[in-house]
């Protein structure tokens, strides 16, 4: 896969490094000359210096043959324009934009960006989850089915402690897919018993997530 990453901040740097390790062809574009030299020392010719919003630079960087264009600068307006120009001028099949202001998520999607990622939103979601209830952590989302993969910690006080899986009455749209015990993921059977410090991995429809949570939570 040929991946063009625009913006050599922390996200762009670690992302590019990781993609290179995974044997992808990567080009990291950084506008600032000083930042570019630092990056180039570390990553070599993977890095190029230039403004990823300029069409001439985009053409030189090979936007026309990129499989994915990822815009991760610190400015939402730049990320938007990079992705829109990549689509409009170079028919990029897939664009990913970092969105700093979460209220821009919906707009970006409406404006044709394929994938949007907002770390602000992700951190906010995690905090909100923690404030509401200590032990359920979202670890992934399946976009179209409105399904989430969550991890639930079984505490000393959890009402499911010592119970068999088959005795749980789960909401209709929820399924336990694994139990992680002492760093081993096990495929649970009907007669698996919950132990303290188990982590339960479940797939659940977003609207019944709170029902699932209450089954495992203390004081239920």
């Amino acid at each position, binding site marked *: 896969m040929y991946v063009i990453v625009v913006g050599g901040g922390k996200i762009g740097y670690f992302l590019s490094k990781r993609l290179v390790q995974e044997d992808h062809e990567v080009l990291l574009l950084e506008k600032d000359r000083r930042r570019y030299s630092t990056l180039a020392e570390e990553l070599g010719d993977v890095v190029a210096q230039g403004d990823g*919003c*300029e*069409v001439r630079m985009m053409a030189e960087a090979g936007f026309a043959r990129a499989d994915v264009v990822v815009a991760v600068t610190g*400015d*939402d*307006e*730049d990320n*938007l*324009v990079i992705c*829109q*120009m990549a689509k*409009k*001028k170079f028919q990029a099949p897939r664009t990913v934009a970092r969105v700093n*202001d979460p*209220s*821009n998520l919906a*707009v970006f999607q*409406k*404006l044709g960006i394929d994938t949007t990622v907002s770390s602000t939103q992700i951190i906010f979601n995690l905090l909100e989850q923690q404030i509401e209830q200590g032990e359920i952590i979202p670890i992934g989302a399946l976009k179209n089915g409105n399904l989430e993969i969550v991890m639930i910690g079984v505490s000393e006080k959890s009402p499911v402690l010592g119970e068999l899986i088959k005795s749980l009455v789960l909401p209709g749209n929820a399924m336990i897919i694994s139990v992680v015990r002492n760093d081993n993921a096990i495929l649970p059977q009907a007669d698996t018993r919950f132990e303290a410090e188990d982590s339960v991995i479940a797939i659940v429809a977003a609207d019944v997530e709170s029902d699932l949570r209450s089954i495992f939570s203390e004081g239920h």
Partner: protein
Amino acid sequence: MADSNGRRVVILGCGRVGSTLARQLAVDGYAVTVIDSTADSFRRLGGKFKGTKIVGNGLDQDTMRKAGVEHSNVFIAVTQGDNTNIMAVQIAREVFGAKRVVARLYDPIRSQAYREMGIVTLCTTTLAAGLIRSTVTESSECDGLREKLESWDMDYLEQVG
């Protein structure tokens, strides 16, 4: 504003272009709201400006809401940043339903690309270069425009100078 006839304009960016436009449109009887990230920029509007001034980040939807973009006829983006202007007009259009949006840009390529997407763009780079070229080559193509420019400068001195 009673005399604005319900004609409302929001201008993002209170630099030379934004402030001049704001003062002229206010004189023309429009209800004008100007947004800029620094309060200091509003000094360019002078003491007689009757419109509304809002300090804020023009890409923040809360600022746009405060400026009344959803109740305006036209949204104009004239900040120093091409990408800021491009994003602002798209938010005005998609989120707040602004019917007419105008973006001033420096990059002719972006200007052309977004014009094709239905945004009114004005590239001041090619505008200025084209006019100056017509003066150098003594082409008559821009004669009308040169007169127009002269009268605009006169207007400026009369109305806001």
